[in-house]
């Protein structure tokens, strides 16, 4: 594996030189490998959103560097658009960015800016729509006639269609109903599996993060607090709680069970895992057949 993204002493200060000066990201250094699925967590205002916006050059770091494939993204400021195609960014509530007459045209906006035309463009659009579960007949509709969840998917398709090497999603499931969340979430996971792209997911749902992330990045008060494998991070539940975060509910339950003397392993992250462990335990004790 090789580094796809490397951050070196990255800082960002809002309102530099005014009385409202605020350091949103403070001296963050880390590397992200190709093909990794990274979860980003942190309380509101911890600097997550600012951090990810620096990764594709939407905002310029006050200090430090962002290296994409070993090259500083700001080494040629004129070519910053190319970086934005390679590092795709889906903002919170992305449905508010829809503007075209039809869903098809809206999804095509990004790849068109990238320079795709004709068949290539058509293929990119249809593929992105398929990934996000938009039916072909929806492509001819006005984006404003779609339901909330469909709008969200159309907007995400608009970024996926640019075929970015790194996909950043800022709270993609916020405000959707449980069913919509579940569908969208599994589509993101499938996308990652099939394409093998690097995905960065900002979320407040520890359950979601626990299910999919290889590693978790924890931001706390503008600093990088932790970066480790999902299991290792959620084993540090007490520390997370002091940062206003939590471990997944099921992990907490298993930890409590263990403290009470039940023989369960550490680092259970999903309900399915817990079910397996507990049922085999009960079978062993002859309480479940």
């Amino acid at each position, binding site marked *: 594996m090789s580094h796809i993204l490397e951050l070196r002493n990255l800082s960002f200060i809002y309102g530099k030189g005014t009385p409202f000066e605020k350091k949103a990201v403070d001296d963050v250094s880390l590397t992200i490998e190709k093909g990794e699925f990274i979860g980003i967590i942190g309380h509101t205002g911890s600097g997550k959103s600012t951090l990810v916006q620096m990764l594709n050059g939407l905002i310029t770091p006050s200090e430090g560097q962002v290296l994409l494939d070993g090259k500083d993204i700001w080494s040629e400021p004129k070519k910053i658009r190319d970086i934005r195609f390679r590092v795709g*960014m889906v903002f919170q509530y992305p449905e508010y960015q829809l503007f075209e007459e039809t869903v098809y045209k809206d999804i095509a906006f990004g790849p068109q800016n990238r320079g795709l035309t004709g068949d290539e463009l058509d293929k990119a659009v249809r593929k992105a729509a398929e990934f996000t579960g938009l039916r072909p007949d929806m492509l001819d509709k006005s984006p404003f006639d779609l339901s909330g969840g469909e709008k969200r998917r159309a907007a995400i398709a608009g970024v996926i269609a640019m075929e970015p090497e790194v996909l950043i999603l800022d709270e993609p499931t916020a405000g959707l109903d449980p069913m919509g969340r579940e569908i969208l979430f599994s589509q993101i996971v499938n996308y990652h599996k099939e394409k093998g792209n690097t995905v960065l997911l900002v979320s407040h749902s520890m359950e979601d993060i626990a299910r999919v992330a290889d590693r978790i990045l924890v931001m706390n008060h503008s600093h990088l607090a932790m970066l480790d494998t999902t299991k290792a991070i959620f084993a540090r539940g007490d520390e997370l709680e002091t940062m206003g975060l939590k471990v997944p509910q099921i992990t907490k339950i298993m930890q409590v069970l263990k403290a009470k003397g039940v023989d369960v392993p550490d680092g259970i992250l999903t309900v399915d895992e817990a079910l397996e462990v507990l049922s085999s335990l009960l079978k062993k004790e002859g309480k479940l057949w």
Partner: protein
Amino acid sequence: MVRDVAFGQYFPGNSLMHKLDPRAKLLCFVAFIVVIFFTFNYASLGVVAAFTVFALISAGISPKFYFKSLKVILFVVIITSLLNLFYGSGEPIWEWWILKLTWNGIHRAVFVSVRIVCLILLSSCLTFTTSPTELTDAIERLMKPLKVIRFPVHEVAMMMSLALRFVPTLLEETDKIMQAQRARGADMDSGNFIKRAKALVPILIPLFVSAFRRAYDIATAMECRCYRGGTGRTRMKTLHMGARDIVSFVVTAMIIGGVIVCNILLTSVL
């Protein structure tokens, strides 16, 4: 970023200017701005300029912000004073091609630039020291007599305060939409005029959509709180005229008187 625009900004404070009743402040400023255009000789111009400086000092706001608002209209000032400079009447004191410099032109240029600068400084001073709510309250109260001719005073004032309230919200929204479209490769910073105008479409359409959505939301929120228009509404903070407001009226009246006296006693230079 869009948010750097200092238009109509309000700086909370405790100065003399802040404490004036907004109605008194508004009336005095309007009267004074009219007077600016009735200065025809250097004595009256001096009175006006001196009072402008006095008003700015009594507001206690850093000169930095006044310079910022002046910067925006600097271009207008330069163009208008240049035009006036070379199109005066009378004996030319210097001539080249179609350009004619006359004493009359020089006077005109000085007057026009001082007038515009005073105008901008005073209106900045008013918005810097008066919150948008105070300002709309004042306008509502001052327009009350218009109710006699069935002018919807309360509705207009409510619309103004809603509009002012949404300026920062919409600026922030614009910023967000711009970032989102930039992330999709929208190119807003290069190309010719037509290309740039076209690049605005992906920003303006979502902005309109969201403005309408917000309008519906706020209408619902107002109805939920039983808003039924202006009839029978009372105010949490009623405005009271005090001694200092009367003093401000007297001062303004004296300035107006001074300018009139100067105009009668001294000859016009324009």
